[in-house]
């Protein structure tokens, strides 16, 4: 008898628990980018992509409530990069030392509902590589550099990339436009490195990561731009000869057009 009552209690508790869970289902995030394919043509002068998404099962009373934090990161392909440092040698400024990083995002744009250090702790940001300072960069294999030097070069790299406009940060770039709907515009500068982009969206609440979503945006040369680039890389000899012939032709044509009347 006693065991039967016990079983009933357990069963009821389980039922209640299930009902509770149904009442407050966990939040998650779904997102996408407005464009799946960005074309670099001869008239390319940069563009913007819109990253938007929604918080599933949002418990946020209003867009301004600030219950959730969202961070949007759009990254280019990782590529090696060399940072060089000048020093004065015999009165002249010369690149004397350098550090090579094997894999550095060629492009990195981050937008968030507020400054990222208010959203989550360093450990979490590090783990997800959210924020310039949390991107994993380590110098190439054999180089044995002390931590301080690595940090100096890493900071220089980030500063230079920001200067080029390919590392972009917008602390209040993500806005909620409904209880669950949010959006962020990410600008791709004219000099954005060509290659596929990854868009990652993170949903936070009180410093905890509730969900993340990832999608891809293609970024490639199109039309004449693509043709010339591929021609130059795949047929460099013919490309060089064509350039020379065009140059010589233009020079001769101008001389012919402007020749003095005999």
């Amino acid at each position: 008898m006693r065991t039967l009552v016990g079983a009933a209690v357990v069963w009821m508790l389980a039922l209640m628990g299930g009902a509770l869970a149904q009442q407050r289902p966990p939040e998650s995030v779904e997102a996408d980018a407005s464009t799946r394919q960005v074309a670099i043509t001869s008239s390319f002068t940069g563009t913007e992509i819109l990253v938007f998404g929604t918080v599933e099962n949002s418990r946020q009373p209003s867009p301004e409530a600030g219950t959730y934090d969202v961070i949007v990161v759009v990254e280019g392909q990782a590529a090696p990069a060399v940072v060089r440092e000048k020093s004065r040698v015999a009165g002249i400024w010369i690149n004397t030392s350098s550090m090579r990083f094997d894999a550095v995002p060629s492009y990195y744009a981050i937008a968030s509902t507020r400054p990222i250090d208010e959203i989550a702790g360093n450990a979490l940001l590090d783990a997800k590589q959210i924020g310039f300072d949390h991107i994993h960069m380590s110098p190439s294999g054999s180089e044995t550099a002390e931590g301080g030097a690595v940090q100096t070069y890493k900071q220089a790299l980030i500063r230079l990339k920001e200067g080029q406009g390919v590392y972009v940060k917008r602390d209040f770039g993500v806005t909620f436009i409904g209880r669950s709907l949010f959006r962020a515009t990410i600008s791709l500068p004219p000099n954005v490195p060509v290659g596929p982009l990854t868009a990652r969206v993170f949903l936070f609440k009180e410093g905890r990561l509730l969900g993340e979503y990832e999608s891809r945006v293609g970024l490639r040369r199109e039309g004449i731009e693509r043709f010339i680039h591929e021609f130059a890389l795949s047929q460099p000899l013919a490309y060089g000869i064509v350039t020379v012939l065009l140059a010589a032709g233009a020079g001769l044509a101008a001389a012919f057009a402007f020749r003095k009347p005999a």
Partner: protein
Amino acid sequence: MTLYLPIAEMPVSVILFLALGATVGFLSGLFGVGGGFLLTPLLTFLGIPPGVAVATSTSHVVASSVSGAMTQHRRGNVDIKLALVMLAGGIAGSYIGVAFVKVLTARGLFQLTVSLTYVVFLGAVGTLILVEGINAARRARPGGSASTRKPGQHGWIEGLPFKMRFPRSKLYISVVPPIVIGTFVGFISAIMGIGGGFVMIPAMIYLLRVPTGLVIGTSLFQIVFVSAAATVLHAVENKSVDIVLALILIVGGVLGAQLGTMAGEKIRGEHLRVLLGLLILLVAARMAVGLVVKPSDLFSLASVPGAS
């Protein structure tokens, strides 16, 4: 109107670069020089990567010297045999130069080398032209022809082996000096993105003693081919020739050059030389400042070739 450059991978204002080409073309027509020494630095000042600037400049030299070379050839002012001998050296020299550019770029020393060679060569040549132009202007004797030096003895050059007859120039000299001169000019041409006439012409006059009437034509003739070779080699080895940028510059350049030639006929020769000397020194000085003044950021970022 902007256009995205396929190799430099940046959008540029077409008007700005047409104007740049036209200005450089005007000055080169005015002074009768190739103009590469102006174009390469100006391109880098406008943000074109130095490798692309040098390689694209060499194609511009082809355009700006080909019509002059044709004219000289038609007038019979080219010693083809001598030009071919120098060309052999020139192509070898530009090959070495292009390979050198590749190594230097990988080590982060290319920009420095370009600046140093500009300061040294332009400083020296600019000073020479300026001094010579000022002296000529001071003498101001319209009848006085260009200083023809007495044919002196060049013991060591006459003693070299592999002598060859150059009937057009009425020379019987060793092939070693023309090949060495050609190699050297090809080398600096590939590194600096210039034609190299300012080194070639004095060398031909004072070292080889080529008759003055043949110097310009022969040097132009071989510059066309050396620059053409350097352009192709840059395209193959460094993939740094931007055909779109080249075309914009060439269109501006050939038009500007015609206007410059017309303007040049109205200005006295020695005044032109003083102006040219000043212009060359200005470029050298600008390069020197870049070397000596502490850069605003000691760090710089280099892309790794083949990574894109």
